[in-house]
């Protein structure tokens, strides 16, 4: 009877794919906190209470210098937010975190309180990948959380396929790699080979604190502290793991899909 059952069930449930990005983005859990904002100007003189509480040594403060927070290393535990008496480090609640340049994740000094969101690919790459992007995912020491929250984009709720983005089994069928994990020494060879097998032009996306900077394993002899040590990275998506919405935002941002939407809205066709 399952045929009838499933048909009736589907009719009752209707389309379960979220309306984002045409509609509003789904709400983050209230305790998620989103991206961090660092206002070094608010730091008390000589205070470095946030530095020792950070598990991944993402925060530094040299004597006489403003505090600096590397959101690429951040695992979003918010221990620094709790430890900061004057509120120089705060959560913004913003799910958007993907950047194109590693330095765009460095927060703190005046003018760099928040991260600088990714710009779309330009010219030829955008023409090639804008409507069809095939990615090969490589986990290189990933704990399976970044993998799971990348995988979830393929489920009916998110339906990544509607944006022309698809994960493929062979690097030879791919336009780029999506890398998770700190890149273990033991995966270095396999990752290099996978990258070499992707035809030009190609892109690399680093997902999660590990792939960006080694995450909780930064400095271990067994890891390379992120994908950039082995391959050139075009998009960094922070988190531990990044929320699926953050990953999706990053992918759409890279392909210019969010700009297109913005352009269309004033015309009323949106």
């Amino acid at each position: 009877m399952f045929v009838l059952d499933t048909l009736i069930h589907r009719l009752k449930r209707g389309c379960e794919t979220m309306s984002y990005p045409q509609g509003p983005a789904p709400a983050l859990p209230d305790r998620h906190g989103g991206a961090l904002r660092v206002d070094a100007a608010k730091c008390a003189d000589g205070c470095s209470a946030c530095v020792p509480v950070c598990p991944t040594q993402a925060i530094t403060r040299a004597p006489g210098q403003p505090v600096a927070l590397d959101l690429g290393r951040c695992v979003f535990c918010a221990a620094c937010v709790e430890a900061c008496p004057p509120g120089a480090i705060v959560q913004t609640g913003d799910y958007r975190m993907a950047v194109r340049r590693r330095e765009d994740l460095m927060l703190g000094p005046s003018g760099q309180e928040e991260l600088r969101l990714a710009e779309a690919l330009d010219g030829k790459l955008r023409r090639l990948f804008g409507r069809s992007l095939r990615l090969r995912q490589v986990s290189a020491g990933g704990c399976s959380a970044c993998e799971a929250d990348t995988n979830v984009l393929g489920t009916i709720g998110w339906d990544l396929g509607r944006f022309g983005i698809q994960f493929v089994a062979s690097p030879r069928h791919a336009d780029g790699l999506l890398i998770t994990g700190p890149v273990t020494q033991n995966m270095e060879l396999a990752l290099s080979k996978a990258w070499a097998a992707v035809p030009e032009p190609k892109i690399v996306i680093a997902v999660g604190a590990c792939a960006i900077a080694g995450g909780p394993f930064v400095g271990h002899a067994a890891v390379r502290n992120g994908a950039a040590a082995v391959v050139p990275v075009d998009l960094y998506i922070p988190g531990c793991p990044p929320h699926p919405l953050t990953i999706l935002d990053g992918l759409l941002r890279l392909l210019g899909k969010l700009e297109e939407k913005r352009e269309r809205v004033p015309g009323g066709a949106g």
Partner: protein
Amino acid sequence: MSAETPFALLANAASLPWSDVPEWPAADLVRATARELDRGARLCAWFGVPEHGAVRLVALLAFDADNTLAVGRSTPFTGSYPSLTVTHAQAQLFERELWEQHGVTPIGHPWLKPVRRTAAGAPANGEFFRVDGPEVHEVAVGPIHAGIIEPGHFRFQCAGEEVLHLEVALGYQHRGVETALAGGPHRATLSQMETVAGDTTVAHATAYATVLEALAGVEAPLRAQWLRAIALELERLANHTGDLGALANDVAFLPTSAACGKIRGDFLNLTALICGNRFGRGLVRPGGCRYDLEAERAAQLLQRLRVALRDTEQAAAWLWDAASVRSRFENVGTVFSAQATEIGLVGMAARACGLVRDVRYDHPAGWHRFAQVPVVVWPGGDVFARAKVRSLEIQRSGEFLCEQLAAPVEGEHSVESPPPAPDTLAVALVEGWRGEVCHVALTDAAGRFLRYKIIDPSFHNWTGMTLALRGTAISDFPICNKSFNLSYCGFDL
């Protein structure tokens, strides 16, 4: 059984002074351990502790029927000792690991080769077991697999479609977790524990917090224990539901696959409701929990949980209703119960072989001393049994959660956890969704970790997956592998 043992007894989530652990020369420890294993004990851990250039062996045994653990150690030695694997196969990976980590040779070990060691950008796999014959061919899969999953290498020896032998070579995910723990706890330790196996964050974080509390001689407040138990079952629900969907997908049964993919996310979002992170990161802390589950939040959780459970029930019903699914699951990838006992299989995979093995029941600690989840056992040992156990455990965990959320415990959710006591050994077992998560810590004279051993259930169970493939068609490998869904990084550490 345990009453006559020469080993020191201790309960789960307890500690004892290192000097109280009985010691024997290595050969005698091997004999004593073998005797206990013959009497029904199970090998939870077998590892080395470095001491002045030599190494001590430590054996941690579980007497499941007596609800107690037992621990013994060897005197420091170098060189070699008689292998336990020769008589007890469940020690085989432990002894390979010991050889790799401490350089002591288990004499007589039939398959002594590296577990995780690096050789030029890849693990030093060594030679694979080979079957010779005119019709025999070899298939190599991985390290990078077709889907979005972790890397590992599988080497099949096949005659036509039939798999004669499968050898799994892991180590690709090795991040140096145990090495980094020496001298700890460090700043990054908790984050590393939460990512030992990312889909088992709550179980590993709970085991770590429990070990630290046992070393400090404190107990987390009851409300925190209650909250940890809730988070642990939410973790189980998310993973079991995801796996049912993935199993359905592997036999091209799309209704359940599509539904479960989404419901899995619903369960993850419930964990995020408690602590903000879909995998439970930031929730469990030594001394309790970082977040509370206030009445209003608990009510919202319960309401959303009921909806997700109803959806799961429906999706599972389609699966079990379909003869096409049953015929693909039945008698595929069988692990016999005698094999399961012999190799020391744990958790859900063991229960699907008819073995009653569940830490929540055998070695209750934390909240499980006060509230029980019925143990799900299904005979058969095939893909069907492993899917069935998941499906039944979803029901049991769901009922448990509904009961617990309706009767919250009052009080604090966190206390200060003092520093660990010096020269002390502590053990914590937690029944993660795959099975037994085992953490053993030993402190030095300053109260820092002299040795910290982590055993993810996958360490025991990968051998089970290879046995399941024997005599099975290689085309059934995906459903066999998915029916175990073992962790690569939890094994590689």
